[in-house]
């Protein structure tokens, strides 16, 4: 089942996104109406970063992908994964960790905060050469 068919989850996702980020993020679908994603532009201290928050076919068992929808001035190496995805998923799942994705409460709305933090880290790294490791949001 894709999110487009999961009416219950779709309503919850949309409500969470609107409640937190208003009309900023734009919901998009492919022509077949099977793939869904949000388009949004992150803004940090006057710098702008367009992103896409894509729902994978296994959503919400796996978290959304946050895709950087522009060419960055510098390649952030390991902090960007294949397909221009931001790296943000906590990798060590054998530990209890509050930063881990949980489909009972997390939605794509959280990804906007995650992307903002990532962009901030990118800007600090661009200026200082150090990638800061702040706490995850949510």
């Amino acid at each position: 089942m894709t999110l487009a068919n999961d009416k219950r989850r779709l309503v919850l996702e949309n409500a969470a996104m609107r409640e937190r980020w208003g009309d900023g993020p734009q919901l998009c679908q492919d022509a077949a109406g099977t793939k869904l994603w949000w388009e949004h532009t992150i803004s940090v201290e006057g710098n702008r970063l367009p992103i896409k928050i894509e729902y994978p076919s296994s959503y919400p068992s796996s978290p959304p992908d946050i895709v950087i929808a522009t060419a960055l001035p510098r390649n952030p190496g390991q902090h960007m994964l294949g397909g221009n995805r931001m790296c943000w998923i906590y990798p060590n799942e054998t530990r209890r960790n509050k930063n881990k994705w949980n489909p009972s409460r997390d939605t794509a709305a959280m990804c906007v905060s995650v992307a903002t933090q990532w962009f901030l880290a990118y800007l600090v790294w661009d200026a200082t050469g150090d990638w800061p490791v702040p706490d995850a949001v949510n």
Partner: protein
Amino acid sequence: MRQHNQEELFKRTCDIIRPGLLQRETPLIVGAGSGGARVAEELVRSGISHIILADLPDERLLEHNIIRHPLGYRDLGRLKTEAVRDRLLDINPACQVEIHGLDFAEDRELAEHLLRKATQCHSCVDNDKARYAINEMIVENHVPAFFAGVFDGGVGGEVIRVMPGGPCYACVASMLNRSPRFEQDRDESFDYSDPDQDQYRSTAALNIDISQIALVHARVALNTLMEKYELEGGSPMEGNYVLFGNRQSAPLFPSMLHCETWQVQKADDCMVCSGLNEADCASQADEIMASATVR
């Protein structure tokens, strides 16, 4: 094959569970690794006579699996599902074992088909993506389920029981992630390293550590059946979460073999098991889809 005699086979256990009593039960075991294989074996030894066993397609027994798996060198390189099936048939030749190669998170159609036939579901997988996929589908299909996990280093583990209408695995995981009991296990930092490299790495643990948790898992499942069939000795389980310490590891496990059972409540706003029902949101969902930009 040697002749077998069911009565003789269950001679020493029939006073506790009469053979044939559990014949309507069909547990679906997801994962034929060190945990799943043991849970399957315990269920068969307890009188379960029909099992569905699923593991990832082409998941084979490798040499490094052997030291923590009931199977050995004679099954090296075989599909785990096939080899575990043969092992179960070696214990009870009358048992029916259905096997499938299945990625539960990706192949929803087959997963749902198997769940419709199952009376219990056992999550014996090693990653959250699969656990959450199982959780979603057992909630949707109202199938009782058991989730087990072994903690890093094998110091202990947990078993979560999800009954239809009750708190789901995601509710329980969400509560546990916030529990101060697990504080020392937390790494508060936001990790930007590659999530793919480590995501499915196996937990470091001894065979005895995994077996112990698998036995707790099988016991919780069996007890649930004993409750269902009102068997003597099937005392109601007071809770839905069992925390079991193999070794002392303060503050989580003050001593070896430390065991606690908790009742974790349903999260009112759990997006998996609470709130809206599908029919109520159909028109709203259609509106959302109609307003989505087509690219």
